[in-house]
């Protein structure tokens, strides 16, 4: 009965434990390095400029994927993210057109609030109606998409110049795209405190085992609404980054909903809920984007490129589940 102090571990031990629990993320990182090496061999002059382009192009999907990851960790799924991005994007582009920087900043704040509201509506509907998440958010997908077309029937509007400058070009070093810094800062500011708070732990608890969570004193309904609301926040950031990178608002939803689900799964988040984080899914987004870049560069027929992406996705997941079941034995 004297071993109380024995668990005060040395840093190396903790690092090893961290690595053991994040093998999936580390594996993805390895895949990313291999892909970068492959990219360099097929495009010998791939360099800082390529990395900058990569940073800009991943931003919308990366934020959408973080949103999706949070909902999936809490045991749900949000199919409305694609049209939520469209709605927030056209609202921002329409309001910013011809206005100054200060007003643009106010618009950004308003759009973020709009995202939180849209997400909270999703969550409240899921909790109060007890209709499955997949149905509720499929329905709201059409609602947000309709609203986006009401705001603006055709692509147009404009983004504040400072917002556009956030999405492209480097900062400090030519190897550091601004977009990547924005991504890291925004995600870190929201996710890191969240993951350490009781609310963040509750997301995992509700997604992992609802009965046990209830017995542990977690308010299931409120936790779900909060997860959807925070997903709405990231959905709005994703919409803003669309506006920032294109300079206009587009009312027709992009392919982001299903891509975000794919990236979340590839990123090691269990669709059954309760497992995973946001780092893995973000790396998965970069991996998917690089694969797309490479197939384009190699001049592969875009239809074949889609087949290749799908095969790689399934292949990685099969490999992962084989390794997982090995480890469980």
């Amino acid at each position, binding site marked *: 009965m004297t071993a109380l102090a024995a668990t005060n571990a040395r840093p190396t031990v903790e690092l090893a434990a961290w690595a053991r629990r994040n093998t999936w993320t580390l594996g993805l990182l390895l895949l990313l390095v291999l892909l970068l090496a492959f990219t360099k061999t097929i495009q010998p002059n791939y360099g800082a400029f390529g990395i900058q382009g990569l940073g800009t192009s991943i931003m919308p999907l990366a934020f959408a994927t973080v949103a999706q990851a949070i909902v999936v960790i809490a045991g749900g799924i949000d199919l409305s993210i694609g049209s939520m991005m469209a709605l927030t994007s056209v609202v921002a582009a329409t309001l910013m057109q011809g206005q100054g920087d200060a007003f643009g900043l106010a618009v950004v704040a308003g759009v973020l609030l709009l995202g939180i509201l849209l997400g909270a509506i999703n969550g409240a509907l899921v909790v109060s109606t007890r209709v499955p998440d997949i149905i509720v958010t499929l329905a709201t997908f059409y609602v947000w998409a309709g609203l986006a077309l009401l705001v603006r029937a055709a692509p147009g509007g404009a983004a504040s110049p400072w917002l556009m400058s956030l999405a492209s070009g480097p900062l400090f070093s030519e190897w550091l795209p601004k977009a990547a810094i924005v991504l890291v800062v925004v995600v870190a500011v929201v996710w890191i405190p969240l993951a350490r708070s009781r609310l963040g732990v509750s997301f995992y608890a509700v997604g992992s085992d609802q009965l046990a969570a*209830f017995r542990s*004193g977690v308010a299931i309904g409120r936790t779900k609404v909060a997860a959807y609301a925070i997903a709405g926040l990231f959905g709005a950031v994703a919409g803003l980054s669309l506006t920032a990178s294109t300079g206009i608002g587009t009312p027709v939803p992009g392919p982001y909903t299903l891509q975000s689900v794919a990236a979340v799964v590839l990123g090691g988040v269990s669709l059954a809920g309760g497992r995973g984080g946001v780092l893995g899914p973000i790396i998965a987004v970069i991996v998917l984007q690089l694969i797309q870049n490479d197939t384009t560069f190699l001049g592969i027929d875009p239809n074949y490129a889609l087949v290749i992406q799908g095969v790689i996705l399934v292949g990685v997941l099969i490999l992962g589940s084989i390794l997982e079941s090995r480890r469980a034995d």
Partner: protein
Amino acid sequence: MTIATATTDLMLEATGISKTYGAVVALKSASLAVRPGEVHALMGANGAGKSTLVKILTGAVHPDAGRIVVRGRERTVHSPAEARRGGLVSVYQDPSLIPDLDIRANLRLTETPLEPFRHWLAEFGLADLDLSSRARRLPLASLRIIDLARALAIEPDVLMLDEMTAALPANLTERVLEIVGNMRGGDRSVVFISHRMSEIGSVCDRATVLREGETVGVVDVTAGSEERIVDLMLGQIVDQAIPQAKREERRTTNGERPRLAVQGLGLDAKLYDVSFDVHPGEVLGVVALEGQGQDELFEILAGSRRPSGGQIFVDGTGVSFHHPADAIRVGVVYVGADRAQALLMQRSVRENIAVPFTAHLGRWGLIDLTRERRIVDEAVRRLQIDARAGNEVRRLSGGNQQKVTIARWVAGGVRTMLCFDPTRGIDIRTKQQIYVLLRELAEAGAAVLLYTSELKEVQLVCDRAIVIFGGRVVAEVDRADADEATLLRAAYHLQSGAALPEQLAASAAEMATGGPTTGTTEERVVSA
């Protein structure tokens, strides 16, 4: 801190608690009064309402009526979190740790202070447990101890332990009892639920007995109070005027080959050396309190779980089932208590009955509808299924649904039927029809294994019964002796009741009290 001395000296007082689920009355005017420093047993046969009462006290279920007073203050608890703030904490039968979170995060969720938790872990001999391991990766016994240590660390006024020792090996059971015993005479209280009379006798001061949702008595626990508790649990056994299925005395089984023979069946920490035979023409009853391993036994026999040891013989041939289809192929079929798991709720009675013999994937081509109709009609007629709402099985009453699950096997010509509490939640008339049907099946040469939570069914339907306690067969009772009192005593493993084979009685008693001889087999489980 000083305790209020005047108004009430009760720690917890619950009065007039009632709860109904639809037409089922789970509790009607149950009450519980616990003194400070007391370990108070909550007793009752299966379905008496113990678990419902605990869930109400900890806010997991809302009562329809009743008052809960803790330390003299009336409380309404709407959630486990609220109950915890009010000083009521429960350790449930199944662990309430989040499987995907590590222990540290689980503690944060319940706002459990870390140092007291470590202290209690050390008390249980788990001081070197890695708090960053995920709950999913820990063995069940450790999870239960963590659950208990967490509850103790919160220092609740009233700690409720629901079958705390059920999944523990002997050495840990002993330690838990010791610690619970040490809480006597302090300023906190424990509500203790256990099926093991020996544990009640060793740690409890008083016992509240529930029967059919009502508190029927409070007993001081002393030597010999077990009989009094059992009497209260049984109540006055009124003569049930249920017409008995006509039967002839079963012919002697000497030399006859059993239809189903089980030898030395074991499953880690759940079943130990279970052996019995079921002969053609016989209904063998299985009697057990909740969670004594009967669920696992039936799952193994039905082919949905693999045993860790022992053998199963069907008609004298050794079998090993990898899938329920393997069991069905040799004529061993399963009827469960939960109809929803067995039926295609949105399909017709006809399709449901026909599924087992049209669903062989190996058989291609069209379904012979004429033959199917003939067989199904025969089964519907024989079981008197009211099939007016037959287009969708989910519209049928529970009793008729259960008849459909039986009919699907009867239609194919049943050889061995495993029935797991088939009359649970069914009206009395349908129950009787099912009793008659089971007898008829046996008469026609089938072997039936029947687990029932209603003890009086044993004499109505079975030829003899085996009693399972703590994963072992502890008694075999002939129909003539299988009255409710005898069966309940045997199920609680009280030696004074039914005559037990001596060596079995001895080993089971050692197990219940944590004797050294069984420790070796069970210690494996903890370290696994």
